[in-house]
């Protein structure tokens, strides 16, 4: 298989080209059969990895979507999130900002130093004395050490880097929250999850806890585990972080939107992480 690595300006059009021998048109019938069997068993292995243990009632949003959407996520050559991963990979080594420094100057190879990072966030930031999401951490790092402009908060570059780092967490288990510093935010997040808000007066739990698996219109309500963020949401036709999804929910129930990186936002993200502790991270995923 030839995968084209692309270079270019940071804001150039991201494109991906994959060339591989097309086994399915191989003229030997047995070869075609074996390929199909291998593909099925490979898909089964990944499927098993992604589902929770039988005694665990928790299910990733992956389980609630249709076959074709699942196939989109599982195939890296088709997963639309991979375009952002490619951009993030370029940004990781790009010299930028007033200091002309790059992420890799401190962190080296992301696939070594950033292993499992997305499954450990939100996490405590000692400098600002509060927990921060991975997106916020990337922004803080880039402004502190690369001299980047903080006004690019939740911008495309931050998202692309988050996607690249989320890929380094693929198949790692989301870790339990055990830092006592963040406990007040974790408790706040639990409280917010149960609290009815907005014009429609619904809480997160009303849909994602008590009615998960039933339908809202034609859509099946998932359990709201952050196992595949940042996610390419078909509804958005673009990539978005967990904070974007949370804001979408608040908007849907006609509640005031929490500000990016605010206390309510990070509290909810922290609680969702704890709620999903032990579930495998899927890397940047696809959702309807």
């Amino acid at each position, binding site marked *: 298989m030839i995968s084209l690595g692309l270079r270019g300006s940071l804001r150039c059009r*991201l494109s991906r080209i994959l060339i591989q021998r*097309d086994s*399915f*048109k191989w003229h030997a019938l047995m070869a075609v059969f074996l390929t199909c069997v291998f593909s099925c068993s490979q898909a089964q292995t990944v499927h098993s990895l992604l589902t929770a243990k039988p005694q665990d009632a928790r299910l990733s949003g992956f389980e609630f*979507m*249709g*076959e*074709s*959407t699942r*196939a*989109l996520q599982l195939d890296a050559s*088709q997963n*639309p999130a991979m*375009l*952002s991963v490619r*951009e993030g990979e370029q940004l990781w080594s790009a010299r930028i900002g007033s200091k002309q420094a790059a992420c890799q100057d401190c962190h080296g190879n992301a696939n070594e130093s950033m292993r499992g990072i997305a499954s450990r966030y939100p996490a405590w930031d000692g400098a600002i004395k509060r927990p921060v999401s991975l997106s916020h951490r990337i922004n803080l790092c880039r402004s502190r050490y690369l001299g980047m402009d903080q006004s690019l908060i939740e911008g*495309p570059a931050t*998202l*692309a880097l988050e996607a690249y780092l989320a890929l380094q967490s693929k198949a790692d288990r989301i870790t339990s929250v055990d830092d006592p510093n963040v406990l007040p935010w974790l408790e706040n997040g639990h409280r917010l999850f149960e609290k009815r808000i907005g014009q429609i007066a619904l809480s997160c739990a009303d849909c994602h806890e008590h009615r998960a698996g039933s*339908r*809202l*219109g*034609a*859509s099946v309500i998932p359990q709201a585990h952050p196992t595949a963020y940042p996610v390419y949401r*078909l*509804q*958005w*036709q*673009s*990539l*978005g972080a967990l904070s*974007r999804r949370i*804001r*979408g*929910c608040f*908007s*849907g*129930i006609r509640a005031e*939107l929490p500000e990016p990186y605010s206390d309510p936002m990070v509290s909810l993200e922290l609680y969702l992480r704890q709620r999903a502790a032990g579930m495998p991270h899927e890397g940047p995923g696809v959702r*309807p």
Partner: protein
Amino acid sequence: MTTQPLRSQTAPSKDAQFTLPDHSPDADRPLASSYEDAIKRFRGPRNLIPGRIKLNIAVLIDNGNTVPISIAVIPTPHSLSNIESIAVFSERNPQHEVIRLTVEPGHSSTEVASRIRLATSQKLIAIANFEDNTCCSDEVDVIVTLAACLEGEG
């Protein structure tokens, strides 16, 4: 990555009137006025032959914004002619043209794939034209579901 904030697309109701832009931005790509017209114009006077083409698409779609499709064209014992072009048309999108493909000359079989938008539940047809002035088609009925929670902010 797009620099324009995207908003969720919701499918219009059955009775909604689609307003086409004031004029087609492509003078060289005139649009068909109906689904049947689009099919007729692409087929031309070609004879329709059975089989040879398969349009693969999920019957129940999670979200009409991104629907994976694939089209497979294979020769049959009675039809070995090379492919000239392949087109896909939608019954109920604002424009009926979806995609038109030209494959490498001298090939009687191919498999292509893409991702398309479907405005609502509808029929979709894939047509292949061959060098011997024949054509074949495969039509499918798809059901498109919507996100029930409408987000104001994308």
